[in-house]
């Protein structure tokens, strides 16, 4: 049971990083542009 739980944890981490990293990168790019433009 503990093994299954840790396996799930790894899969969850990888899956969320897979979508989270590009999305966060895109949001940061947009924020940087928005802040620069309002200066």
């Amino acid at each position, binding site marked *: 049971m503990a093994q*299954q*739980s840790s396996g*799930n944890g790894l*899969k*969850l981490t990888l*899956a*969320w990083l*897979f*979508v989270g990293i*590009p*999305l966060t*990168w*895109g*949001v940061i*790019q*947009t*924020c940087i*542009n*928005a*802040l*620069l*433009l*309002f200066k």
Partner: protein
Amino acid sequence: MSILSKDRTIAPPGYSRWLIPPAALCIHLCIGQVYAFSVFNLPMTKLLGISQSTPDDWQLTDLGWIFSIAIFFLGASAAVLGRWVEEGGPRRAMFTAALCFGGGFLVAALGVSVHALWIVYLGYGVIGGVGLGLGYISPVSTLIKWFPDRPGMATGMAIMGFGGAAFIASPLSVWLMGRFTTPTHIGVAETFVVLGVIYFVFMMVGAFIVRVPSPGWKPEGWVAPAQAKKLVTTNNVFVYEALKTPQFWLIWWVLCLNVTAGIGVLGQASAMSQEMFPGRVTAVAAAGFVGLMSLFNMAGRFFWASTSDYIGRKNTYFCFFVLGAILYAFVPTTGNIGSITLFVLSFLIIISMYGGGFATVPAYLRDMFGTRYVGAIHGMLITAWSAAGIFGPVIVNYMRQYQIDHGVAKADAYNTTMYVMAVLLIVGFVCNFFIQAVDKRHHMTREAELQAEREGAAA
């Protein structure tokens, strides 16, 4: 192909349902690229002339059709293929969406290489558009089945991805074009090829992560409410039977009016902010304002859909219509008193509710028609989006022009439009007010459900 069949995607014991939102995001973060397609428009007007357009180069007006065709096929394929998606399961639909969307880019790349615009229309517009429609609805019912306790939050997460995809696609496309462009060549075709391959792979990851829950599965510790809520059914309505209910058409108008109000100003935000505050909002600042609006559009999808799990779908739309109407009516005042801050704040809230309208509607349909065909019914409802895509910009553009032609100053030309938008939202409020639970005669009988399951298995 059996690996794609619904039976092969049933989750094994111990499978975490929190893997489903990233699977859905793999699809929506790709197909939402359509919002960023305009970054290719200008480079595609100079494919032959390189530094400037030549008479043989494509015109911007012709290129605008690529986006319109894609959006048309998004709505059409979601409406026509919704039942196929529902009965074949999410993996088959996601795989097909990946093939169409990635393949559409490759066909469009060929069109750019041989400078044949009809091939680009066929590739990105038709084939890619079908991928958009299939991809948009494919994870919806799966998410709702995995999250019966929080369907709004679950679908909100996926549809948030659609709103956020342009943040990735826009800088990525510009960067890729920069890499492939030389003094004698504009690298649009190569960029299309790379994007097609990246999106195909990314979407395939989603297709292989996704699972459907085993029959009778429930979240651990979750007990279905003993007494059904008035506006949340425990029955199912057959996909085509839903079209015969007033609820479907009322929700169609609710979505259409909410989107019409948002989409009209989304496309005009930059020009509107500059014309309402002449000399105070520069083109650069206006672009920053548009970026902020996109962020609120994305965040609103998650925020409002999640909130709807607590306050109910009907009340969430009441918030959109009441708050939206007040804010639209208030916008001309912000111009009159010269408050850019209040103007920006008003539109950020308005646009968050525009995104929220998209993200909350799948859960609204689930409450009305049950989970069995919610994906297919959602597919048919997408036509409301297509209609709003025409109404919104037309109302804003033509009313502004009419005002200017009749001697109204540019700074005041949007006032009437804002009041019209407020009225549209009041009409939406009335439609939402009349939504009641679906009559029992539309519910599927037990025999009909079993028959549908057999047909689904055979498909």
